[in-house]
């Protein structure tokens, strides 16, 4: 069948294309151009000029058509600006989720359908399992490369159309070996990194450029509003963090952490680490990959890209879900809270910003 392969120019998606071709599919490659290739390209970042060349070289070598899709404006609007806006609203966003959700799994997938493809494949490390109720999304075999958390917002309709051939690979070495077997020039290429759109400096510069009103020093205050220190810019702080607090890191013998960020007032709010944990949180924009159980469900939730899932009870609400944690934790607004059962994703949403964290 005709399959569109989303090619980043890296080794993973190149192997996907080569494998599908070997299996006898009609492979069509597509690479998103996310920013002007004439700009400074960041080493290790995805979808810059060199990566487009690499993807094209792979397609030429293997002999299938390849297209470069202009997604500059869309990426700017739907990912970069939203990323900066979320920071400006005091959240810590996950831009990769927004990118997968919008540019990749909505736009590119729509294009795949427009060209008459029957499926779209990517080099993501997740497994798509054909279950009794349709396609299921699972963690990959290679836990070290698990990208399932970043893909929680994939809808059931999208999942139905998607293929993730690398979900079964034991490790990256095996993928590189396969790339060598296919004779791909990208076999030894370094992995891409997160925050692909931050070209130089850091995301802090980017957000401050887009929201200059947030830039500059401000106050660190405790939960009752007393000034306890100073900081260099609210952009550098995420709920749950204890670094960069200077002398305020320990107050009255207690370790402190960030419990809130107020970009408008350039304030960072801290509280005692031992008391700042919450056992209930609210999530929005919930995507269910199972029929949402009205009575709620007990599962594991993962609230950061890299952390151990914890046991929780998830209750669907009219505007999202409430998550009741077995053991208190420190969720960061804007991050994803993904519901797992074993290796399978049941759903997930974005953590809401609450005015006052519930202290225990």
């Amino acid at each position, binding site marked *: 069948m*005709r399959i569109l392969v989303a090619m980043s120019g890296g080794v993973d998606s190149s192997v996907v294309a080569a494998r599908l071709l070997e299996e006898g599919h009609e492979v069509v490659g597509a690479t998103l151009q996310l920013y002007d290739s004439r700009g400074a390209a960041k080493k290790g970042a995805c979808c810059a000029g060199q990566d487009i060349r690499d993807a094209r070289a792979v397609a030429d070598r293997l002999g299938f*058509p390849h297209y*470069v899709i202009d997604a500059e404006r869309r990426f700017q609007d739907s990912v970069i600006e939203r990323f900066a806006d979320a920071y400006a609203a005091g959240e810590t966003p996950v831009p990769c989720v927004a990118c997968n959700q919008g540019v990749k799994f909505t736009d590119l997938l*729509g*294009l795949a359908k427009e060209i008459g493809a*029957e499926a779209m494949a990517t080099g993501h490390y997740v497994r798509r399992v054909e279950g009794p109720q349709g396609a299921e999304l699972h963690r990959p075999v290679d836990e070290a490369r698990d990208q399932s958390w970043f893909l929680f917002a994939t809808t059931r309709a999208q999942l139905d159309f998607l293929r993730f051939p690398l979900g079964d690979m034991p490790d990256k070495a095996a993928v590189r070996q396969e790339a060598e077997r296919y004779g791909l020039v990208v076999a030894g290429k370094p992995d891409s990194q997160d925050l692909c759109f931050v070209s130089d400096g850091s995301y802090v510069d980017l957000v401050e450029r887009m929201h200059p009103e947030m830039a500059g020093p401000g106050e660190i205050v405790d939960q009752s509003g007393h000034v306890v220190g100073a900081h260099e810019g609210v952009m550098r702080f995420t709920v749950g963090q204890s670094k960069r607090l200077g002398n305020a890191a320990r107050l009255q013998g207690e370790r402190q952490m960030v419990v809130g960020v107020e970009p408008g007032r350039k304030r960072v709010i801290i509280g005692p680490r031992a008391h700042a944990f919450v056992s209930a949180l609210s999530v929005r924009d919930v995507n269910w990959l199972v029929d949402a159980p009205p009575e709620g469900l007990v599962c594991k939730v993962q609230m950061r890209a890299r952390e151990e899932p914890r046991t929780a009870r998830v209750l669907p609400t009219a505007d999202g879900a409430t998550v009741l944690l077995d053991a208190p934790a420190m969720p960061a607004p804007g991050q994803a809270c993904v519901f797992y059962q074993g290796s399978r994703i049941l759903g997930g949403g974005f953590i809401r910003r609450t005015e006052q964290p519930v202290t225990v």
Partner: protein
Amino acid sequence: MTGAVLCGLQKAQFWYGFGYINGMNKKIDDKEMNFSNPVYLDANATEPLRPKARAAMLEAADVTGNPSSVHQAGRRARALLEEARNTLASRMDVAPLNCVFTAGGTEANVLAMHGLGQGRRFLVGRTEHDAVRKGMPDGADVGWLEVDTHGQVRLDLLEAALHAGSTPAFVCLMLANNETGVLHPLDEVARLCRQYGAHLHVDAVQAAGRMELSVEQCGADSLACSGHKMGGPKGAGALLLRGPAPRPLTPLFEGGGQEQGRRGGTQPLPAIAGLVAALCDGLDNPRDLAPLRNRLEQAACAAGAVVCGAGAPRLGNTASLALAGRRAQGQLMRLDLDGVCVSAGSACSSGKVAFSHVLDAMGLGELAGQAIRVSLPWNTQEADVERFVQSYTRMAAGAGLALA
């Protein structure tokens, strides 16, 4: 005329000798259909090579000398170069010493703007090719000339702009638009430019070789053309300057002082010979492609398309077809996978499909991202158009090979 048709027929047989004609109603193996015998309808990106141009190129490639060398080998090369120059000059009605060979259309345009535009303010059409839009010297004073909904320059606004400034103007307006084929009212434009003492530079890359053109008559002070858009090879173009006396022109780079000190670098003789042969072949065997183009447009409209620029005089080979709600890149890919080569806007080096500034300038809004360009080459056959219509209709309906 007969010559061109015959050549086209031979080519068509080569392309369609297997698979297509007899297999129209059969399921054809995808790969064979897609890549072995594509239908090439992207002449405005580059024309297929004309056999006469090929022959001239090969002959010139065997000439060893450098036209600047004094020995007999050099003299032979020089003779060939000057013969090409004289032919070009006579066909385009310009003095031989006012024909400056360049590497192509972009260079010819940029050379004109840099070499002739000093001390002038630029007035540039909104729908110009990027070669012109991005070709002005750094820091130049640039005013943009709006077009009407058909894509023709607004003469009232041109006159107002000419009238407004105190410094003399350098007006850049193309003869035929690469995306829509729309022709500007050049006579009127030239009259206004003369009236206000403005220099008129005409990018004639899409028009030269496709219609009789006299630099002397058309009113352009300078005019750019390109070999591969006439059916010659890529790699040569020319800047033509009006007037009987050699016109001074500051070079972009001096090099060895070639082309009367107006363009440095050894002349690419094979490409130049091919350009001139292609020009002559095109003018000697004129072919009106409008009937085929019109047939294609009628079918596309029946499938839901809108023809952009249809209300203005146009090149006979060009159709700009917008399909509301369907992204240009999807249309392009779908047609390509079906073995039909067309484009969206101008070909860009990165290969990406972008929003059309031309259609945007015409006020077409969203449609600027939803149009493809079909441009018929000199050797187009009816069967090519039929096959395009078939693919386009299928694409517009949203059903495809894969789902059939």
